[in-house]
C-alpha cells in the first residue's frame, strides 16, 4: 500500500529520514517494499511570469517570450506552446535544470534566437492533470494562483513528498489504512499518534429515514451496514491537498464526493460506496442474496449475471451493487446527482472472495473485504466522510444514521502471564516493559503481579490466541535483535534418516559413481505424453490423477509413470547435441484408483534410468540394473519381457521372489518417433518402494576358502535362439554343491558353425570347503552340466 509521508505526518511525527523510517518500520514488523521521492527527477524549475510574447520570425509556431523569474533581468525563452501568453504565471526550467526521464535543460539557440530555459507543461514535469488541474488540455502548465517569482514549483505541484510502499502482513488488515500505518509509526519512532477529532455538522433537512429505507436480509453475509444521506450534493473538483494525498497513494482524483469515499477508505481501511439516491428505485436498499439470473451493469460498463447466493445491494426491484465488490452503473455519482447515500458496511470475507472470483471482478474494495474489514469501526469511517463533506462544502449532511448491527461484537479481553510472555520469546523482557509496549499499541492493560489483563484495541483483528499474540507484540516492539541464540535442551533424540531415504541415497551414490546424472521433472504431465507410450486400453498407467485447476493441458495430470519424462529428457539432450547421456530420476507416481485409508491416491517411489551414446546399449544398461540389485542383496533372474514402448527383441525384466523388480530395454522405434528421439536409447524402470521391501542386509561374512579351486572351461554350440541366461542357470544347478561359480565369457559367431548357430564359452569354478576336489568329482559334475545343456538346449561341444 502506497502512502505519502505527508499524510502520515498529519497524524504523527516522523523525525527521521525516509531510509531510517523504512528500516524502523521493517524491524517492528511492518514490511516496506521501498519508497519513492515524488519529483526527485525535477530540479531547477521555478515560477516565472511571462512579460512579453511575440511570434518567432523564423517559425510558424514558435514564440519568443521574456520571462521574469525573480532575477536581475528577465530571461528570453523560445516557447512552442500554443497557449503561451503574456501575463501568465508558469513553471520555468532554468538552464541546468533537470526533468523526468533524464532531460537536462541547456541555454541555446532555437532557429537563431537565444533561449535561456524552457517553459514546461504538466506532463514534462511528471504532474498529471489529476494532481494539478490545468485549464489547458495541451501546452504549458499555467498556475491558477499567485506565487512568488523564482519559487521552486515542486511544493506548488505536490511533487515534494516521499511515498512509502508498505507491504502489509496478512494478519494486519488494520495497517491497510493511513491511521493504521501512523499508529505503527508512532510505536516504531516513539512519537505520538494523533487521530483527528471527528465532528459532523448536519446542515441537511429532516432525517435519513425520510430519504431511504434500509433492510439487511442476510446478516450472515452483511453483519453491519451503516448509511447516511447527503442532500444538495455539490459535485466538483477536490481541493489541492486531497488530490495530492490521493495521487501519492496511487489513486486518481475524480470529484469531491468520490474522492471523499476513496480518501476515507485509505485513511480508515473501510471501503465506502456512494449511491445516487434518486436512481435507487423505491428509495429502498435491500441487502440480500441475488436470485439466479439477476443481472447488473457495473461501474465499468460490464454486464454480469449473478448467481443465486451472491450478495447484492438491491433497490426495490433489482441489484444495484455487487456487495463489497463494485457498484452499479445506474446509481453512479454524476454531475447531476442531487442526493447521495453513503454506505459503509462489513461483508463476509469468504463470500466476497468467492463472488469476486466467480464474477472475475477484483477491486481495491473487494481485496480489502477479502482480507477482513473491521466490524467495530465503520461508523467512525462514515462520520469521517460526512465531516469531510461538510468541510469541503460538497453537500448537506442529513441528520440521522442508519446502523444495522444486530450482533455487536463485544470488547475483546485477553490475559497472559508476564513470565510466560517473555519465556516464549527467549528474551528477558521486564514486565514493566511488556506493559509499556502493550499500552503504546493501544491495549488497555491491567497488571496484577505476573498476570496481565488486556483489552484489545478495537482496530485489531489478529489477537486470536491470547498469550502468544502478546508475546509477539512485546517482542516485535522490544526488538527481534534481542533474541539470543541458545542450543536445544532437554531429552536428546537420536535423529537420523529412514530406511526409505537411505535406499534413495544408496542408489543415488551407486548411479552417480557409474556416471549417471540425476534429473528432476515436474510431477504433472500431459495425459497425451502417457498415451504416446502406446499402452493397451486396460493398462493401469492410463489412470491418471487429474488436477482440477492446472496451469495448462501439459501439466494437467499427476504422473502414473516416469517413462515419458525420461524419454523427453533424453530427446532434449539429443537435440542439444550432447553425444551421450546417462540419466536417472527418482520420484513419486500416483494411482488414483487405489486409495489409502485416508482416500489419498497411492503414491509409489519409482526410478527410471535412461542412456544413449556410443557405449550405451541394452547389455550395458542391464549391467547397471544388475549392479543395483546386487548391491541391495536382491537375487534375481532375467526373463524376456516387453512393453509396448520397448523394442520387442531387446527388452527384458528382472524377477526377484516372483516379483518384477525391473523392466528394461531399448526404446521401440515407434516410441522414438513419438518422443522425437533422434538416436537409439535404452531405459530401465524400478519401483524403489518394492526394492525397499526386497532389500536384504548383508549378514555375516563367509569363511575364506582353505582348499584350492578347479577351473574348467566349456565351449558349446547351439541355435541362435537358445537363451544363454536360462542355460547358464540350469548348468549352474546341474553343477551341484561343489560348483562355486559359473560364468559366460565369450560368444562366437561364424558360418562354419552352421546357419543361425553360435558358440558360447563358459567357465566353471569348483571348490569344496573341506577338501581338495578329485579329478573324478569335477569330471562327474562337468558331465552333468554337459548333459543338461545337450538335453534341454541342444547345446553341444563343438565337433
Amino acid at each position, binding site marked *: 500500500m502506497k502512502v505519502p509521508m505527508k499524510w502520515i505526518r498529519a497524524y504523527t511525527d516522523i523525525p527521521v529520514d525516509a531510509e531510517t523510517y523504512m528500516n524502523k518500520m521493517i*524491524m517492528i514488523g511492518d514490511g516496506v517494499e521501498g519508497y519513492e521521492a515524488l519529483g526527485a527527477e525535477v530540479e531547477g524549475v521555478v515560477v516565472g511570469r511571462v512579460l512579453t510574447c511575440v511570434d518567432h520570425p523564423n517559425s510558424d509556431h514558435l514564440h519568443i517570450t521574456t520571462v521574469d523569474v525573480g532575477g536581475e533581468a528577465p530571461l528570453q525563452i523560445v516557447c512552442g506552446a500554443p497557449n503561451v501568453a503574456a501575463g501568465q504565471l508558469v513553471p520555468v526550467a532554468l538552464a541546468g535544470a533537470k526533468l523526468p526521464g533524464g532531460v537536462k535543460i541547456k541555454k541555446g539557440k532555437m532557429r537563431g534566437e537565444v533561449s535561456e530555459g524552457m517553459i514546461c507543461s504538466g506532463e514534462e514535469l511528471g504532474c498529471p492533470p489529476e494532481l494539478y488541474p490545468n485549464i489547458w488540455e495541451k501546452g504549458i502548465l499555467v498556475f491558477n494562483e499567485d506565487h512568488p517569482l523564482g519559487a521552486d514549483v515542486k511544493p506548488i505541484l505536490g511533487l515534494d513528498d516521499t511515498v512509502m510502499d508498505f507491504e502489509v502482513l*496478512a*494478519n494486519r488488515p488494520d495497517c491497510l489504512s493511513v491511521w493504521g500505518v501512523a499508529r505503527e509509526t508512532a510505536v516504531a519512532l516513539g512519537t505520538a499518534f494523533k487521530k483527528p477529532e471527528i465532528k459532523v455538522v448536519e446542515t441537511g433537512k429532516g432525517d435519513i429515514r425520510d430519504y431511504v429505507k434500509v433492510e439487511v436480509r442476510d446478516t450472515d453475509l452483511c453483519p453491519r451496514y451503516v448509511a447516511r444521506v447527503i442532500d444538495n450534493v455539490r459535485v466538483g473538483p477536490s481541493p489541492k491537498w486531497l488530490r495530492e494525498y490521493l495521487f501519492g497513494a496511487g489513486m486518481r482524483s475524480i470529484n469531491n464526493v468520490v474522492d471523499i469515499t476513496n480518501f476515507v477508505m485509505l485513511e480508515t481501511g473501510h471501503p465506502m460506496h456512494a449511491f445516487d439516491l434518486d436512481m435507487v428505485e423505491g428509495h429502498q436498499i435491500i441487502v440480500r442474496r441475488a436470485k439466479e439470473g439477476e443481472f447488473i451493469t457495473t461501474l465499468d460498463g460490464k454486464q454480469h449475471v449473478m448467481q443465486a447466493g451472491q450478495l447484492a445491494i438491491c433497490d426495490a426491484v433489482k441489484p444495484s451493487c455487487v456487495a463489497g465488490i463494485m457498484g452499479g452503473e445506474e446509481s453512479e455519482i454524476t454531475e447531476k446527482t442531487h442526493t447521495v447515500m453513503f454506505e459503509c458496511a462489513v461483508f463476509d470475507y*469468504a463470500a466476497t472472495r468467492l463472488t469476486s472470483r466467480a464474477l472475475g471482478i477484483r477491486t481495491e474494495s473487494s481485496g480489502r473485504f*477479502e*482480507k*477482513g474489514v473491521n466490524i467495530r469501526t465503520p461508523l467512525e469511517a462514515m462520520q469521517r466522510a460526512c465531516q469531510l463533506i461538510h468541510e469541503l462544502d460538497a453537500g448537506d449532511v442529513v441528520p440521522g444514521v442508519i446502523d444495522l448491527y444486530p450482533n455487536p461484537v463485544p470488547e475483546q479481553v485477553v490475559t497472559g502471564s508476564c513470565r510466560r510472555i517473555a*519465556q516464549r*520469546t*527467549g528474551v528477558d523482557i521486564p514486565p514493566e516493559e511488556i506493559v509499556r509496549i502493550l499500552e503504546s499499541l493501544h491495549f488497555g492493560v491491567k497488571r496484577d503481579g505476573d498476570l496481565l489483563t488486556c483489552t484489545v484495541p478495537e482496530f485489531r483483528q489478529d489477537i*486470536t*490466541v491470547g498469550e*502468544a*499474540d502478546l508475546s*509477539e507484540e512485546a*517482542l*516485535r516492539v522490544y526488538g*527481534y535483535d534481542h*533474541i*539470543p*541464540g*541458545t*542450543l*536445544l535442551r*532437554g*531429552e*536428546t*533424540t*537420536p*535423529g*537420523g*534418516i*529412514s530406511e526409505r*531415504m537411505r535406499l534413495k*541415497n544408496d542408489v*543415488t551414490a551407486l*548411479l*552417480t*559413481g*557409474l*556416471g*549417471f*546424472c540425476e534429473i*528432476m*521433472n*515436474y*510431477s*504433472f504431465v500431459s495425459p497425451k505424453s502417457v498415451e504416446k507410450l502406446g499402452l493397451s486400453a486396460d493398462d493401469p498407467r492410463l489412470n491418471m490423477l487429474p488436477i*482440477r485447476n492446472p*496451469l495448462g493441458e501439459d501439466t494437467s495430470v499427476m504422473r502414473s509413470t516416469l517413462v515419458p519424462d525420461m524419454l523427453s529428457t533424453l530427446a*532434449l*539432450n539429443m537435440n542439444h547435441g*550432447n553425444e*551421450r*547421456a546417462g540419466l536417472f530420476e527418482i520420484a513419486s507416481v*500416483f494411482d488414483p484408483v487405489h486409495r489409502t485409508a485416508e*482416500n*489419498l*491416491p497411492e*503414491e509409489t517411489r519409482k526410478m527410471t534410468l535412461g542412456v544413449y551414446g556410443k557405449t550405451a546399449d541394452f547389455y550395458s544398461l542391464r549391467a547397471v540394473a544388475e549392479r543395483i540389485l546386487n548391491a541391495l542383496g536382491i537375487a534375481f533372474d532375467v526373463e524376456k519381457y516387453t512393453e509396448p514402448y520397448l523394442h520387442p527383441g531387446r527388452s527384458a525384466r528382472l524377477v526377484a521372489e516372483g516379483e518384477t523388480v525391473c523392466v528394461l530395454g531399448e526404446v521401440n522405434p515407434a516410441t522414438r518417433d513419438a518422443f522425437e528421439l533422434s538416436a537409439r536409447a535404452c531405459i530401465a524402470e524400478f519401483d524403489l518402494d518394492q526394492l525397499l521391501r526386497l532389500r536384504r542386509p548383508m549378514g555375516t561374512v563367509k569363511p575364506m576358502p582353505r582348499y584350492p579351486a578347479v577351473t574348467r572351461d566349456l565351449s558349446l554350440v547351439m541355435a541362435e535362439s537358445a537363451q544363454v541366461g536360462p542355460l547358464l542357470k540350469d548348468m549352474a544347478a546341474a553343477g551341484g554343491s561343489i560348483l562355486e561359480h559359473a560364468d559366460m565369457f565369450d560368444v562366437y559367431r561364424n558360418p562354419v558353425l552352421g546357419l543361425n548357430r553360435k558358440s558360447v564359452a563358459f567357465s566353471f569354478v569348483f571348490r569344496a570347503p573341506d577338501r581338495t576336489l578329485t579329478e573324478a568329482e569335477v569330471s562327474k559334475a562337468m558331465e552333468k552340466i554337459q548333459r543338461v545343456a545337450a538335453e534341454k538346449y541342444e547345446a553341444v561341444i563343438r565337433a
Partner: protein
Amino acid sequence: MGMRETIDQLRETLEQELNKTDSKQALENLRVRILGKKGELTALLRGMGTLPPEERPAAGQLINTAREKFTAMLEARQDAVRMMERAAALQAETIDVTEPVPPLPLGSAHPVNLVMNEMIDCFTGMGFEVVEGPEVELDHFNFELMNIPKNHPARDAQDTFYVDDNIVLRTHTSPIQARTMLSRKPPIRVVCPGRVFRADEADATHSPVFHQMEGLVVDKDVTMADLRGTLNAFAERIYGKGITTRFRPSFFPFTEPSTEVDLTCAACHGKGCRVCKGTGWIEVLGGGMVNPHVLEMCGIDPTVYSGFAFGIGLERIAMQRYGIPDLRLLYEGDVRFLGQFR
C-alpha cells in the same frame, strides 16, 4: 708355469671376458668355460694328480679360493646384467603418459538433492529425524491444521492446485509436521524435506514444483532463542564460519510470533554487495513459535509444551550457492548443466 701363475692368468682372462659379456646366456657360457665340469679351473683341479703329494693341499687351497672368488665375480656380473636387461625392457615399454584417456563419465546427484542432503546431515547431527509424507495431501493437513481455514486470505498467497474439495497438491511440507505431531509425543525434533506445489507459471525465479525443508521442535520450554540458536548453527554449517542470522517480525498462520530469517550475505560477509543489494543480508527462510492453536489441533497441550518451526526453500539455496541464473535449468535435465555438479 706354476699353479699360482696359471690361476692369476685365468682370473685375468675371466675379468676381461666378464667386462665384455652383457647377456645372461654369454655369462652362463663363460661360467661353464671356467667353472664347468670341463672348465679350465676344474681342469686344474683334475691336474693336481700330477703334483707331488706334499704340494697338493696348498694347490687345492689355491684352487678352492679361486673358485669362490670366480663365482663371486660371475654373480656380481650377473646382477649387473640383470639390471641392464630390466632397464632395457622398461625403456622398451615406455608409453606416452600424456596421451588422452577415454573419460569415465562424471555422474551427479541433482543440485537440489545435494543441498537437501547437506541440510539433512546438518540437522540429523543436531538430533533431528527426517520424516517424509504424501505429496498429494488432504486439505485438512495442508491447511486446516496449519490454521488456514477454507477461504482464509492466506490461501490466496498459496495458489493451490486442487484435486478435489478435500485433496490438494501440498503447498508446503507443513502437513508432515501435522502428521508427526498427531502420531508422536514430545520431544519431537524432525525435519521434513520434500516436493511442494504452487500454481505459479514457470519463469527464472518461479516454478510450479519446488522443494522445501521444514523443521519442527516440540518440547517443554522451547523458545524463539532456541530457534535462533538452531538456525545459527545451520547457517555456519551450510554457509561457513561467520555467517549468522537476522530475525525480522513476520506473519505465518501457523506460528506466533513469526519471523523472517535473513542470513549474512556469504558473497560479501555482510559488507554489502550486488548479491544482497547492498544490505549485507540475504532473505533465506521463515519460522517462528508454533501457534498454540496448531499444537492444540494436533493433539499437543500448549500449556505444557511449546515448539518452533521453520521452512526453507531448497531451490533458492541451490541457486544462491551455485550461481544458477534461471530456476528452469533445474528442471530441464541437460547433462551439460547437471554434469557440472560434483
